[in-house]
C-alpha cells in the first residue's frame, strides 16, 4: 500500500496544460527545416528540461537551444546552448536547459544548415508538479549514516570532556569519567534538540512547497441547469493562488471544454463556453446520454501559461427536443465503440467518410480521412487547425488536447513572437498552423504510460465537424 502511495506521489499531479501527460511535443518548421521537438520539462522548479530535436528532412547540421521566459524574452536569455548529436542517429539532437522560475517559458530552437538558420519557438509551462517522498532504501542509507554521525558526536563529546584536557599519559579520574558521561547525556539532548529543529525547518520548507510552489490548477466547479428546455453547463473557476492574469483566446476561444462520459468514454463533446465574467463560463449541452462526466477546460493566460481545469458533473436524462449550439464550432459524438474494425483501424464518420488510424509509432499518431472510393477527403480548417485530437486514458489519469503541430499552445507561441517584436523592434515570425501535407493527419505524441487509451480526432469536411475515435493500448 505504501509503495502504491509512493508511486502515486511520484506521479506528476498534473501537467498544467494537460493532465498526467507532462511532455511537450511539437512538430513544425524552423525556417527552411522541418523539426520534431520533444521537451521533457522538469517536475520541480528550478530544474532541468530535457530537449530532443529531430530534423525531419535530414539536412540540418547543428541545433542550438535557449530558454526565454515570457516576460524577458531573448533579451533576458543566456546565449544558446548547442544540442549534441545523439550517437547512432544522424538527425537527432539533445540538450538540457535549466528553468529557474515558475511560469511560461519559450524554448527557442535554432537550426543551422545549408539553407542558413531557421528558428522556431516551443512554449512550455515551467511548474513544479512532483510531490516526492524519499525512497525507503535511500532514506535508510542516509538515516543510518546520520545515526552513526550522531552517535559519533555524542562519543566525541564524551572523549573531549574525559581526556582532552589531561596532560599526555595521565589517566582520567573516576570523577572525570562520570563528568564525561553526564556531558554525553547533555550532548544527546542538545543534538536531539538540533535534530528536532532541523525536522521543523524541513517541514516548514515542505509546507511552503506544497502550499505555494507546487502547481495546483484552479478549482473548477461544474453544474448543469435547464434553460428553455436546454441543458446548460455552467463552469465556475476559482483562482486560489490569485495569478490575476487575464485569459487570452486559444485559436479563437477563451475556453475549450471537453466533456467525457466516465468510465466508458462513450460520449464526448468539444465545447466552447462563453465567458460570463472572469470566473464564470457557460454553454448549452448537446444531446449526450445521462451519466457521470469529467469536464476538462483548457484556458491560456496572457503570459502564455496554459492550464487544464478538471471537474466532475452528472448529466441528467434530457427530454430536450431542441438544441441550439452556443458556439458554431461545438461538436460531439456518442458511441460505445468505433464502427469499423480490422487493420488499419477505421472509424465510420457520419457523412459517409471513413477515418483510418494509419499508425501510432515513433512519437507520432497518424490518421487519414477517405471517402467511399478511398480518396483522401478535403479537410477544411477547423478553428484554424487541420485537425484536433484528444487523448484520454481509460483510468482517467491522462488527458491531452493536441493538434498536428503538437501539444503546445499556438497562442503562447504567437504572444511570445509579438512580445519579441515589441522588445527588439525586429521582425520575429513563428509559423504554426496548417501542415503542408493534406492527405495525412499527423499528431506528434507519445503516450505517457502504458495502458488503455481512447483517442478522438476531429476534422471539418464540407462545413461539418466530424469526430472519429479509436482505442489504443500503449505498452
Amino acid at each position: 500500500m505504501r509503495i502504491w502511495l509512493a508511486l502515486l506521489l511520484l506521479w506528476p499531479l498534473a501537467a498544467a496544460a494537460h493532465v498526467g501527460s507532462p511532455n511537450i511535443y511539437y512538430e513544425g518548421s524552423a525556417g527552411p527545416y522541418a523539426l520534431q521537438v520533444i521537451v521533457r520539462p522538469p517536475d520541480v522548479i528550478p530544474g532541468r528540461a530535457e530537449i530532443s530535436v529531430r530534423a525531419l528532412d535530414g539536412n540540418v547540421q547543428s541545433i542550438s537551444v535557449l530558454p526565454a521566459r515570457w516576460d524577458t524574452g531573448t533579451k533576458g536569455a543566456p546565449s544558446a546552448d548547442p544540442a549534441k548529436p545523439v550517437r547512432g542517429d544522424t538527425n537527432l539532437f539533445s540538450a538540457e536547459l535549466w528553468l529557474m522560475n515558475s511560469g511560461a517559458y519559450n524554448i527557442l530552437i535554432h537550426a543551422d544548415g545549408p539553407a542558413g538558420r531557421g528558428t522556431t519557438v516551443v512554449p512550455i509551462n515551467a511548474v513544479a508538479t512532483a510531490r516526492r517522498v524519499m525512497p525507503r532504501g535511500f532514506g535508510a542509507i542516509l538515516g543510518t549514516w546520520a545515526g552513526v554521525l550522531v552517535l559519533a558526536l555524542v562519543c566525541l563529546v564524551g572523549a573531549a570532556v574525559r581526556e582532552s584536557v589531561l596532560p599526555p599519559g595521565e589517566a582520567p579520574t573516576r570523577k572525570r569519567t562520570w563528568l564525561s558521561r553526564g556531558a554525553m547525556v547533555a550532548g544527546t539532548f542538545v543534538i536531539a534538540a538540533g535534530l528536532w529543529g532541523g525536522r521543523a525547518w524541513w517541514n516548514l520548507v515542505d509546507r511552503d512547497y506544497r502550499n505555494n510552489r507546487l502547481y495546483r490548477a484552479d478549482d473548477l466547479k461544474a453544474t448543469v441547469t435547464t434553460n428553455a428546455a436546454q441543458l446548460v453547463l455552467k463552469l465556475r473557476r476559482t483562482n486560489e493562488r490569485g495569478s490575476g492574469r487575464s485569459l487570452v483566446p486559444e485559436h479563437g476561444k477563451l475556453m475549450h471544454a471537453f466533456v467525457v462520459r466516465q468510465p466508458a468514454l462513450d460520449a464526448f463533446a468539444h465545447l466552447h463556453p462563453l465567458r460570463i465574467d472572469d470566473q464564470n463560463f457557460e454553454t448549452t449541452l448537446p444531446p449526450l446520454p445521462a451519466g457521470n462526466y469529467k469536464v476538462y477546460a483548457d484556458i491560456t493566460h496572457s503570459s502564455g501559461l496554459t492550464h487544464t481545469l478538471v471537474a466532475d458533473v452528472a448529466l441528467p436524462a434530457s427530454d430536450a427536443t431542441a438544441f441550439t449550439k452556443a458556439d458554431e464550432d461545438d461538436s460531439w459524438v456518442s458511441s460505445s465503440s468505433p464502427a469499423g474494425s480490422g487493420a488499419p483501424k477505421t472509424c465510420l464518420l457520419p457523412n459517409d467518410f471513413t477515418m483510418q488510424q494509419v499508425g501510432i509509432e515513433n512519437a507520432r499518431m497518424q490518421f487519414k480521412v477517405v471517402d467511399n472510393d478511398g480518396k483522401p477527403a478535403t479537410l477544411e480548417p477547423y478553428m484554424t487547425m487541420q485537425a484536433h485530437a484528444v487523448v484520454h486514458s481509460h483510468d482517467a489519469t491522462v488527458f491531452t488536447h493536441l493538434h498536428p503541430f503538437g501539444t503546445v499552445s499556438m497562442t503562447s507561441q504567437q504572444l511570445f513572437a509579438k512580445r519579441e517584436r515589441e522588445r527588439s523592434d525586429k521582425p520575429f515570425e513563428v509559423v504554426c498552423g496548417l501542415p503542408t501535407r493534406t492527405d495525412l493527419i499527423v499528431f506528434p505524441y507519445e503516450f505517457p504510460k502504458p495502458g488503455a487509451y481512447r483517442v478522438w480526432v476531429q476534422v471539418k469536411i464540407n462545413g461539418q465537424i466530424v469526430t472519429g475515435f479509436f482505442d489504443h493500448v500503449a505498452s
Partner: protein
Amino acid sequence: MQTATAIPSAIPVQTAREAVAPWYFKLLVFGAACIPVGALWDISWHTTIGRDTFWTPAHIVTYMGGLIPGLFCGWLALKTHFWGGAEERAAAVSFWGFRAPLGAWIAIWGCFTMLLSAPFDDWWHNTYGLDVEILSPPHAVLALGMFHVALGVLLLMLSVQNRSGTSDGQLLFILTGGIMLLMAAVFLTEKSFPNQHRTAEFYKASALTYPLYLVTLARASKLRWPATTASAIYMGGLMLMIWILPLFSAEPKLAPIYNPIDRMAPPAFPLLLVVPALAIDLTVRLIGRKSGWLRDTLLAVVIAIAFLAVFVPTQWWFSKFMLSPSADNWFFAAGDWAPYSSRPGPWIMEYWGLDPESRRFDPLTWKQLFRAATCAFISARIGLAFGAWMSRVKR
C-alpha cells in the same frame, strides 16, 4: 581513584621543542581555508553564471576543504593508533577503541558530515527544486560539517600549543579562527546585506553568532589581540574576494536574466567586526583573565553589552555609507552583489525591512535590541566556557 586505561602511566610529558607545530599544520590550514573560499566562489558562481554541476571548480575547492583535512586527519588517526609511538598515543583521546588527537576525530567527523550533505542536497534538488539560497537544511548539514572540519584543525593546533606552553603556531591558530569566522559570516550572508543593517533580525543573528567566535578566540589564544586579529583576517579574506572575483569575466547561463552581469559578482562588503572585536579583546584583557562560573556569567553580560554598544552604531552608520554613491567603487563594490536574476532598481541601494506596509517589516526597536543583547549574552557565555576549555586542551 583513577580508572584503568590502556595508557602507559610513565609517559613523559612532551617538551616544548617536541611540541613545535608540525609541518602538516600549514596543509590543514590551507584545507580549512578552501572551505570559505570555495563557498564564496560558489555563491558568486550562482549569482553570476547560475548554471552549475557538482563538478564546478567552486564545488571542488569547497569539498577539497573537507577532504584535505579529513583525509589527513584520517591518516593521522591510523598512524597514531597503529604505528604511533607511546608519546603520540599518550597525547591522544580514545574513541571507539581507537586513539588519535581529539582535533583529528572532529575533523574526520566534519568530513563525513560534509559528504553526507552531498546526496541529501542532491535529493533535495530533485524534490524541491534547485535551492538558490544559502540557508537550507542540506546546506546546514554541509555547514555543520565545514565547521567541525575547521574546529578539528583548530583543536589540533591548540593541543600542540597548550602542551608546549609557548605561542608557537599561534598565527596558524588565529588564521584558522579567522577562517571559521569567515565561514560563519558566509552562512549568514542572506541576513547580512548592508540593506539589512537596520533590521532586528540582522542584529539578533549577528549577536547570536559573532560573540561566540570572538570570545572563544579571545580566551583560548595567547596572542595579544586575538579577536581583533581574527576579525581582520575575516575582513581581509572577504575583501580579497571582493577585489579578485570581478577580475574574471563571466555571463549568466540561465534565464530569466534581469541583471546582465559581465563579470563574477563579488560578495557584499564585510561587517566591520574589528571594532566590536577590539572591545571584546579589551574586556577580556581587563576583566576576563580569571574564570569561574559566576565570574564568566557576569563577564558575558559585560561582553554582550560592549559588543552591541559598539557593533550596532558601527553597522548602523557604516551601512548608510555602503548604500550611498560613495561606496559605488571597486573597493567597496556597493550593490555589485546583486545577482543576474534580480531586477535592477533602487531597492539595491535602499534599506530593507523598514517599510511598515511590508510583510518583512522588522525595524530594530528597543525591545528587539534587548532580545539581541540576550542573544549576545548566550553567545558570549558559551564562548567563554568553550574558550576556557580550549585553552586547556592538550590532546
